């Protein structure tokens, strides 16, 4: 599966095996068909998102590093709740995910 992300570059992740169950979710307003086994992090990677948030101290883009809840680099906004670890949250139908592009977004909440 080749998909274009917001910046027009090609996704750098794919699946080696087809999905049996799919769910429809929204990533930055775009409709995405995800696997029922996905976490928010795996589905964003396949959808072509690499930068999930901007570091709150430096403003640099960051993406998932450990995928197991340790590094806190994959923070996204899910259904309006900011700074959630994308690697720990399973996708659910109709879920609305926003990557966190603003430097201070989510801070102090």
């Amino acid at each position, binding site marked *: 599966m*080749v998909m274009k992300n917001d910046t027009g570059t*090609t*996704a*750098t*992740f*794919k*699946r*080696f*095996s087809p*999905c*049996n169950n799919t769910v429809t979710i929204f990533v930055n307003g775009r409709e995405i068909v995800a*696997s*029922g*086994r*996905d*976490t928010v*992090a*795996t*589905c964003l*990677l*396949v959808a072509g998102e*690499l*930068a*999930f948030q901007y*570091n709150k*101290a*430096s403003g*640099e*883009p*960051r*993406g*998932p*590093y*450990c*995928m*197991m*809840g*340790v*590094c*806190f*680099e994959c923070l996204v906004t899910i259904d309006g709740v900011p700074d959630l670890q994308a*690697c*720990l*949250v*399973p996708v659910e139908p109709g879920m609305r995910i926003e990557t966190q592009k603003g430097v201070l977004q989510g801070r102090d909440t």
Partner: protein
Amino acid sequence: MSINSVDVLVVGAGPAGLSAAIELSKRGATTMLIDEQAQPGGQIYRGVELCGESDRKLFGYGYVRGRKIIEDFRQSPIDYKTRTVLVSIESNHVADIFENGVLKRVQAGAIIIATGAYERPVPIKGWTLPGVMTIGAAQIAAKQASVIPSGRTVIVGNGALLWLLAWQYRNFGASIDAIIDLGGRKQISKLLRDFWGFAASSYFLDGAKYYALSRVSTRVITARDQVEILGDTRVEGVVVMQKNGKYQKFAADTVLLHDGILPNTNLLGAIGCEMLWSLSQCSWRPKVNIWQETSVSGVFAAGDNAGIDGAIAAEYSGRIAALDALRQLQILTSQERDTLAQPWIRQRSRARWGRNFIDAYFSPSNTVKTASDATIVCRCEAITHESVSAHIQQEPRRLAHLKSMTRCGMGPCQGRMCSPSVAALTAQISDVHPYQVGPPSHRFPVSPLPLAALAKFDVGLSQDAGKLHE
């Protein structure tokens, strides 16, 4: 407030936690198992329940094994709480857990901590760029949802897991453009001494196969010098620089890093368990007795958070911890415990065969020691190698001071991404052994919490409740 009361609280649903919980519930102890993830299995058996049978086999026998444990677990009467973290533990085994946005208090008779391991951070320049993740992260993506890189992929690092992933990627049809092997020169004499234990171990045949197949089928570059990741807003490549000024460049869309794994001891440290430095594994681990009990009475550490021994040893250490917890709860007599434990204690030792060889062969590269000035050491607060080193030189071996002056280690990861590097740098700059630097200090809460949850936390009449969150 009603306080939930259980015989044993188990933290972590990997092989150690699952095995402990199965054993406890089988012998009639009320058991609560809490885990951060949505599904059981920890990282080693991540997604094994939902993974199709043919896909499961592509990961190798070490993954398939998890299916059986989880089946047993699903049939056991255990209060299993997913996506729940342990926030703090007070004396007398009172634990505060965070579940579904709410803080709750649990009174336990004993606590078994099985929080596993995580990968040693690999600070090299550019490691914070999107598109760079760990070997473990790549395995998790594949196990969770069959996700693999589709572009040019370069692996950088050192460790057994690296060669396992390379073999698994061959099975998935994922291509690897290059493996940059940071494993330094091997100490042949030490390796020979430990080789026979390895040759007799369960790791030998599979491990040798993964290693040999990946080495011959992939371009492997041995790097003894500096490696940097290139890119501006995402990874674009890797450069290997040699001391004579020559360099080799590789274009990459994904870079996967690894430098071995470390016991995840934040929780144990915060409880106040005594820590020991492991010379062979270059990491801190809790001091445990033969029953996996830590220096804090009734608090057990089972599985890789008590020292890296692998998934099979973790199963036995979980069961052994459960037996002594049952004895402490007076469900078993000492004699019954000893009889039941005997075969498992033997199996646990058997499962540790070969570990010394693996530890020696893949002794950590500790990339921080050769990293350039601009390399980020503390990812959360974006603190560079240069500023951490400058501070250590000024105020040698005052890690608390470093924290308050630079914010290094103050971010949401609670120091897990920087403390091994800071300790290695401190040892190097101050010219002391890492154990003299001491284990990192941890405090509750060990997971970040929304303030709203704390504000709503009704601690009832517990006498020392106020102390906890001061």
